């Protein structure tokens, strides 16, 4: 009986107590709350209003009628997209290109890190490392300009080299069968150095006594790599791999949009380039918003799943 009474009073009191607590909290930290007001306003206006705006994917949106006046059309745009061959192609391409990129690209930074780690001249090591990160900071607009020259069929350096050793010229940027590989390889070229940082840092944590002991036991350098270095890198590899898979739908836009052309749409067009191209040609706003919503929802699910898997692996320590 007594317990029931006390719990009832606390229930009644609780909201008021919490409110009092909050008011006291705000009063005590007036300045901090004043400072956080603009960022909160910012995140609402520039992030949450567009998030709310995705409802236009279920409408026939027009600027005149706005979000509240436009007619609801249900899943019309989604059905149209899923039945549209170019959108389906773009969807398949997005996954194909990114899977290829992971398959071929994933081992590269590990190999580079292992190679750099073997170098004993400190100065040479630092130079290689510093140079290797550089391309990561150059935008695809610029890189596309450079690659257009380098990979050109008749004048480019790469094809001139192939021709000079008697191999056929390759249409890197205009042959739809080759184009995905051009994307994969140029992306590896851009990110391999940057990706190796994390592995090199992990290698640096390995105690040198392990290697010394192995050497005393007569292990070769290759054996040391296989039995000491690689096992230490395994947790990092798994995390990086999962992040890559989580990002499958999110990456690649800048690169593809700057490198592709109508000749390679069938294998090179990805969801985001499909959206942006349609936007600049003949925008059906609601339909494109639906395409974006499909992509970002699937992307979010993938990313959250990836994070969940990592959290499980690390016993509760997720990435975010």
């Amino acid at each position, binding site marked *: 009986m007594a317990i029931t009474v006390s719990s009832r009073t606390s229930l009644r009191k609780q909201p008021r107590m919490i409110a009092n607590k*909050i008011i006291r909290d*705000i009063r005590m930290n007036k*300045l901090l709350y004043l400072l*956080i007001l603009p*960022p909160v306003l*910012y*995140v609402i*206006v*520039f*992030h949450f209003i*567009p*998030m*709310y*705006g995705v409802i*236009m994917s279920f409408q026939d949106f027009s*600027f005149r009628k706005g979000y509240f006046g436009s007619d609801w059309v249900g899943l019309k745009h989604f059905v149209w997209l899923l039945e549209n061959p170019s959108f389906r192609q773009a969807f398949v391409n997005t996954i194909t290109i990114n899977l290829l990129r992971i398959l071929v690209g994933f081992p590269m930074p590990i190999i*580079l890190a292992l*190679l750099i780690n*073997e170098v*004993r001249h400190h100065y040479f090591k630092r130079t*290689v490392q510093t*140079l*290797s*990160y*550089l391309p990561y*900071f*150059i*935008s695809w*607009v*610029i*890189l*596309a*300009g*450079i690659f*257009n*020259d*380098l990979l*050109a069929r008749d*004048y480019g*350096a790469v094809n001139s080299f192939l021709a000079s050793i008697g191999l056929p010229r390759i249409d890197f940027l205009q042959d739809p069968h080759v184009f995905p590989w051009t994307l994969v390889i140029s992306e590896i070229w851009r990110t391999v150095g*940057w990706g190796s*940082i994390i592995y090199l*840092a992990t290698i640096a944590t390995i105690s040198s006594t392990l290697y010394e002991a192995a*050497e005393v036991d007569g292990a070769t350098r290759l054996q040391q790599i296989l039995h000491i270095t690689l096992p230490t890198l395994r947790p990092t590899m798994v995390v990086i791999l999962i992040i890559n898979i989580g990002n499958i739908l999110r990456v690649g*836009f800048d690169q593809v*949009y*700057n490198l*592709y*052309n109508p000749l390679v749409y069938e294998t090179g067009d990805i969801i985001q380039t499909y*959206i*942006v191209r349609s*936007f600049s040609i003949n925008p059906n706003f609601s339909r*494109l918003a639906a395409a*974006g919503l499909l992509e970002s*929802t699937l992307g*979010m699910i993938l990313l*959250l799943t990836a994070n969940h898997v990592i959290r499980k692996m*690390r016993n509760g320590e997720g*990435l*975010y």
Partner: protein
Amino acid sequence: MNYRKFTVYDVLLYIALAAFCFFTLYPFWSIVVISFSTPQAYYNTQYHFYPQQFSLEAYRNNFADPQIVRSFIISVLVTVVGTANSLFWTMITGYFVSKRNLAFTTLVFTLFLITFFFDGGLIPNFVLIRQLGLRNNLLSIILPFTINPFFLILMKNYFSNRSKEIEEAATIDGANEFTILFRIVAPTSRPILATIGLFYAVFYWNNWFWPMIYLSEPNLFPMALYLRNMVSTTATLGIDPGDLTSQNPATIRAAAIVLTILPIIAVYPFVQRYFVHGIMLGSSKE
């Protein structure tokens, strides 16, 4: 350091890494060489190790175009203002969400965290900018990018891990939060501020996509977008850049590329350690 013999494997290793450096650098080097060549020399050579016929004509042509000068100035302006604005608000928000004893920290942090996983996409953002009347206004390529959730997470982790003793002492001495943040926390957080600031600067400098969407007046275009239009006329038409019929001679394009890259390359050797610092902060939470 153990003194192993310099074996045949070492020789192969050094050759492999030297080749790697060559493949990393050659694309950049070749574009510099092309920019200093005459168009004729460009069409007659396949490899560009050094300028065959040295010429400043491509640069003279570029500087004669008032648009490229204007675009360069706009890029500098947007990068400086954008970075300052982003860094200021990211620091304030990071400081706020690192406070454990406040009632709203979790709520505010969650709001920003959501933006990391989900965004409205191109069209709703475009609609917003149009309705705010920010089209063809440089604010449209600064304001929406004020706080990047990833850098906010880095900032928060940094602030959460630093020792609170100095701040507590300052509070006892009567300093308010404003003083603590700007006189104590900010000056002692210089490495993380430099790292995040540099990442923001690279973003603003390289940004071509949002300017392409939000700006339609060419005299507002930043350098990256100006360059994109120059490069993509050849790319999207599928014209071989070596083709004599292409609109912009390759040497002029090369010079424009060099001008756009130059600021990044010029500061890169001095600041690259901060970038490395950044990725380490982002990955080592345990």
